[in-house]
């Protein structure tokens, strides 16, 4: 019954509506400490005698961090040495409010039983709740609440006798610390506390390098104002209110800063809605912003406009103490007022930082010793970062991760702290890790909490399960996948019905059965969004137990599935569509090749084979119907590396084979996806998760139209059907690859297909252009795509199998999910490509090969050449920097010619491929022309196993230097 002893009303005025909420205070919230005998708690989190060697707190104690400490020093809290921590509800809520990523990380800590983090619901506790006083700021109130809880804890524990743990309040706010001390609370800054931990001296490295004391910052600012401080290098930033005011008045503009790759003193700011970017020159004008920060700029008067210096300038400085000047900043910015001057601006303030963790390397120190070092990020657009570390020796030559904490006005470089050592440069694992980090792919091992939501093994199908599911184990179902696939999420069957029709079933792994909405497992999967496939590695969206076992529809094993059954005529006309949760037993997990062999082998006539033959026949009809409607057949190069089983280095490359069975499986997946999309839209008109592919605007086709025209073909772009037909017609007798290349170009003109919530877009825009389908979604790969999992949940509700939960009906939330999924998918694609690139580089590391290539683009100073055998394209430079080209560029045609040799689009060339070794961080493949021979430019046809020496001293260079 009612346990509340008393209650206070909290009044919150939002807008003008007075909202009154009840707030019950309780006396049944326990302290969570094993040392306490008063609380009637069944289990404890905090240890009875916590021991940690600290020369400041040499007594058993629990730490109690305040909001800012938790927010900024999660890296510290995550360290294994930090245990027995009291996390106040107030702190937790505030952290959640201010930074969701930080909140998620501390959630991970509280659920990790080793960490012994106890969440104390202080705001519901009768003795720790206090009301905000009139005139008190929200911050002061929070600090007071935290102190109140600390005091309560101390007094509460003291009642249990001597030697009970004490409470150590960690706060970097000096005023708060002083008040705490006056109230008899032991309080330290995190820095003091971490430094006092004698067992873990290196932990100091991971401290965020904010001003040691929050109040010190004010002091520095004070010093700057009074001129007492050290050199001030940068102008002050305006505060947010002033910026907003300025933007409203049109004095400032808001945009995203992007540093130049070539010159660290130069950068651009792109303003949403304005085509032209604004130029920024000089570090002082950039004023401590980092690429991707949202900034406020002021456009300089025309007299101060300038232009990029066309200088490639790399920050060569390696001295971390170089903080006295911005060296020659003014000199190089000395404005060149001429006709080429661009609109130039300066940064006046920061609206939102977009700092993340950066991969990179430590600069070799200019002098031995000292703990300050410079870190050079792999991404050229990011400035060097100053960090403090005592383990510099061991970090040299390694890839490390560093995060930026702040950028004070008197520091030439941003200040950050060391987070993690990834491993040696050039090591494949290290490079993979870099690749994942740079593409923001969450790839940490699944946390204990996440794993705790997995089903307990051994997993068996129970009677209850069978009651609510349709038993389809008697059907001859099989799966068809690429070789080596362990996450099988789809299986198929086809059988003849008595009425002469066929029953076709698509059975999809029932992942939503194992992942309940809202739990940690679900949130993790939702955040990951997709499984990421690298050439030699797979980053799972869900833990292995699910992806490769319980959800994987392996041959011969009983598995839960979500089935779509169609009754079809032999002409593939759908009579009826049914959806059901089922239990299936796949008869065989086949590869595309095996399936193809079975179909082709006339001697086989078992149930699975017959069903495959029927499926193939239906698929062909379906495909034809789709193509007739204007679905596009597009092309993108796909290759597979054969990986050495021991070194895991690629030893051979082969193009992916496309068999009839590939497109057979694809056809039924498309059909299932479309059927499901229709079904869920009916029940979730406003919040169905669908996928659309916007019709590209005609202007986007320009490049492809021009290319086709150069060979006398006309691309029709009025609609999908016309485009598809005109592509079909574009065939050149003497160039068999021409059609594929043109399709590749056309593919690049397309916009990306995206997930969206049905409530956010008018129905006519649901169209999927590539598939020529009015509605589409993803249903068939729930193991590796979160979108499919959501769709499963919707379908389960739509067929009355499970209940709806609020989020499924909330269009905005669905759109948020879609936004993340779209981002993750894009990043996963990029990561995949980078991985192929990485392997291509490793593959060519010690090789020089000569291959066929086709010209895809013609640029002013280069040809873009596609190498079909390896599925990549590279740049063939026609001119060295600073030298005149021997080629004449014709932009109209387009072509490049030298003498009687003329390069046109789609021309076949022979190129030599080798690796450029100058830049460690960014290796590049170098292409050189072999055929047609251009005197003074092309290289002679050399044997594939050319020596390293030649590689270092390319013949082209020699020739040119003559």
């Amino acid at each position, binding site marked *: 019954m009612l*346990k509340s002893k008393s209650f206070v009303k909290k009044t919150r005025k939002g807008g003008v509506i007075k909202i009154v909420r009840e707030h019950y205070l309780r006396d049944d919230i326990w302290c969570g400490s094993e040392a306490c005998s008063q609380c009637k708690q069944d289990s404890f989190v905090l240890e009875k005698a916590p021991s940690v060697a600290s020369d400041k707190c040499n007594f058993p104690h629990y730490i109690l961090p305040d909001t800012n400490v938790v927010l900024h020093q999660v890296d510290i809290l995550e360290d294994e040495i930090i245990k027995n921590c009291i996390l106040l*509800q107030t702190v937790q809520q505030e952290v959640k409010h201010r930074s*969701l990523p930080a909140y998620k990380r501390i959630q991970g800590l509280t659920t990790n039983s080793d960490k012994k983090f106890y969440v104390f619901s202080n705001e519901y506790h009768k003795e720790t709740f206090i009301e905000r006083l009139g005139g008190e700021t929200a911050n002061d109130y929070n600090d007071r609440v935290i102190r109140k809880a600390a005091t309560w804890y101390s007094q509460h524990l003291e009642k249990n006798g001597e030697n009970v743990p004490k409470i150590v309040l960690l706060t970097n706010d000096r005023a708060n610390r002083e008040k705490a001390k006056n109230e008899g609370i032991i309080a330290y800054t995190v820095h003091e506390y971490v430094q006092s931990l004698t067992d873990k001296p290196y932990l100091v490295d991971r401290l965020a390098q904010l001003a040691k004391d929050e109040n010190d910052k004010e002091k520095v600012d004070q010093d700057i104002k009074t001129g007492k401080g050290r050199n001030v290098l940068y102008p002050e930033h305006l505060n947010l209110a002033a910026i907003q005011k300025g933007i409203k008045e049109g004095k400032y503009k808001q945009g995203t800063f992007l540093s130049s790759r070539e010159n660290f003193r130069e950068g651009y700011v792109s303003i949403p809605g304005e085509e032209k970017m604004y130029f920024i020159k000089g570090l002082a004008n950039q004023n401590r912003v980092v690429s991707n920060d949202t900034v406020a700029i002021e456009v300089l008067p025309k007299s101060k406009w300038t232009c990029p210096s066309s200088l490639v300038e790399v920050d060569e400085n390696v001295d971390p103490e170089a903080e006295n000047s911005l060296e020659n900043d003014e000199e190089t910015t000395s404005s060149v007022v001429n006709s080429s001057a661009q609109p130039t601006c300066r940064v006046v303030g920061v609206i939102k930082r977009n700092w993340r963790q950066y991969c990179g390397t430590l600069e070799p120190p200019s002098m031995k010793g000292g703990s300050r070092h410079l870190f050079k990020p792999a991404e050229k657009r990011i400035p060097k970062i100053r960090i403090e570390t005592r383990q510099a020796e061991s970090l040299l030559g390694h890839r490390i991760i560093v995060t930026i904490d702040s950028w004070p006005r008197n520091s030439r470089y941003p200040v950050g702290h060391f987070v993690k050592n990834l491993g040696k440069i050039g090591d494949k694992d290290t490079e993979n890790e870099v690749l994942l980090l740079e593409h923001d792919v969450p790839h940490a091992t699944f946390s204990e909490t996440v794993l705790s939501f997995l089903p307990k093994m051994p997993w068996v199908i129970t009677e209850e399960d069978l009651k609510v599911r349709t038993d389809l184990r008697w059907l001859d179902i099989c799966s068809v996948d690429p070789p080596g696939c362990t996450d099988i999420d789809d299986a198929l069957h086809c059988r003849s019905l008595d009425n002469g029709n066929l029953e076709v079933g698509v059975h999809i792994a029932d992942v939503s059965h194992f992942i309940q909405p809202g739990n940690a497992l679900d949130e993790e999967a939702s955040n990951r969004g997709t499984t990421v496939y690298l050439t030699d590695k797979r980053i799972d969206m869900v833990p292995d137990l699910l992806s490769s076992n319980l959800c994987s529809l392996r041959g011969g094993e009983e598995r839960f599935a979500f089935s779509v059954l169609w009754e079809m005529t032999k002409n593939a006309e759908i009579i009826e569509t049914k959806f059901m949760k089922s239990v299936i037993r796949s008869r065989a997990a086949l590869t595309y090749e095996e399936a193809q062999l079975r179909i082709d082998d006339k001697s086989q006539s078992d149930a699975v084979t017959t069903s495959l033959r029927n499926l193939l026949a239906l698929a062909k009809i379906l495909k034809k119907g789709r193509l007739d409607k204007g679905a596009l057949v597009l092309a993108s190069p796909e290759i597979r590396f054969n990986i050495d089983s021991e070194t895991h280095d690629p030893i051979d490359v082969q193009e992916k084979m496309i068999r009839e069975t590939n497109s057979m499986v694809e056809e039924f997946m498309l059909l299932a996806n479309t059927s499901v999309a229709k079904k869920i839209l009916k029940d979730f008109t406003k919040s169905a998760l669908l996928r659309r592919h916007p019709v590209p605007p005609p202007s986007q086709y320009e490049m492809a139209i021009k290319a086709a025209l150069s060979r006398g073909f006309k691309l029709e772009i009025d609609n999908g059907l016309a485009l598809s037909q005109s592509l079909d017609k574009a065939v050149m007798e003497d160039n068999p690859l021409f059609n594929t290349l043109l399709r590749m170009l056309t593919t690049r003109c397309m916009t990306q297909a995206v997930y969206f919530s049905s409530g956010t877009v008018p129905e006519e825009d649901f169209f999927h252009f590539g598939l020529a389908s009015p509605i589409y979604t993803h249903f068939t790969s729930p193991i590796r795509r979160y979108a499919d999992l959501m769709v499963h949940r919707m379908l389960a509700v739509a067929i009355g199998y499970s*209940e709806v939960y609020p989020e499924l009906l909330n269009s905005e*939330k669905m759109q948020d999910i879609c936004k993340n999924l779209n981002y993750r998918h894009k990043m996963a694609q990029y990561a995949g490509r980078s991985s192929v690139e990485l392997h291509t580089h490793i593959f060519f590391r010690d090789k020089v090969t000569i291959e066929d290539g086709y010209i895809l683009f013609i640029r002013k100073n280069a040809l873009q050449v596609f190498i079909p055998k390896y599925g990549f394209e590279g740049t063939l430079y026609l001119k060295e920097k600073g030298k005149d080209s021997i080629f004449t560029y014709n932009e109209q045609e387009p072509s490049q010619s030298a003498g009687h040799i003329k390069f046109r689009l789609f021309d076949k060339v022979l190129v030599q491929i080798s690796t450029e070794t100058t830049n460690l961080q960014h290796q590049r493949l170098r292409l050189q022309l072999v055929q047609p021979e251009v005197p003074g430019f092309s290289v002679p046809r050399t044997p594939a196993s050319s020596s390293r020496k030649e590689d270092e001293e390319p013949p082209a260079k020699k020739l040119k230097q003559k």
Partner: protein
Amino acid sequence: MSGLELLSDQGFRLDGRRPRELRKIECKMGVFQQANGSAYIEQGNTKALATVYGPHEVTGNRSKIEHDKVLINCQYSMATFSTGERRSRSTGDRKSQEMQLHLKKTFEAAILTQLYPRSQIDIYVQILQADGGNYSACVNAATLAIIDAGIPMKDFVCASTAGFVSDTPIADISYLEESQGGPELVVALLPKSDQIVEFQVNSRLHLDNFEKVLDMAIKGCKDVHAVLTRVVKDHVGQLASKMSKT
């Protein structure tokens, strides 16, 4: 899940209650003198007033007269200032009409209607402040008012709500919890016989969880019953002591 966390990992709801706890209930009978019966109830921040007039002759349209039982006439209204944003009128909107109908059905099932043929009982309820569970507050207030009027009923009618959040049924949901879009189950119960006289589910709720949520709502009704019984006993006790003094 983003947004409001209705149930914290520590097992507390936004207002500090545990899932099974009701809000604080306070009530008073006999708040007015002119009406035959009246009562006022507060369930947390939801405040309702009920008055009962009758049994009396049927007013208005005589065709409404029922020959074998009493006509129950209900009006539900919400004070214009009862909600967060001011309402433009207090009665007559669709929701009120619906609520009126529900109340009528609820009390037709509980009042011994056959005792007063050809007459009428008016039950007027008004929400003075709305913070979730308006229907249950009205039913509970009306029950007290009917008892105050001395009209015989089969049993108390006790109403309560239950919701379902993160796999946990929660009792007596507040406006904030109502507005998050989860399922809401409303039950009016005759507690002694465990008969459900009114029952309503908003939003989807899976059958597997239905039992749990219904149990929670019924438990809520019984807790309400305990409170109401005590109030009635106190009230009667006071009346008795007043009478003995005079």
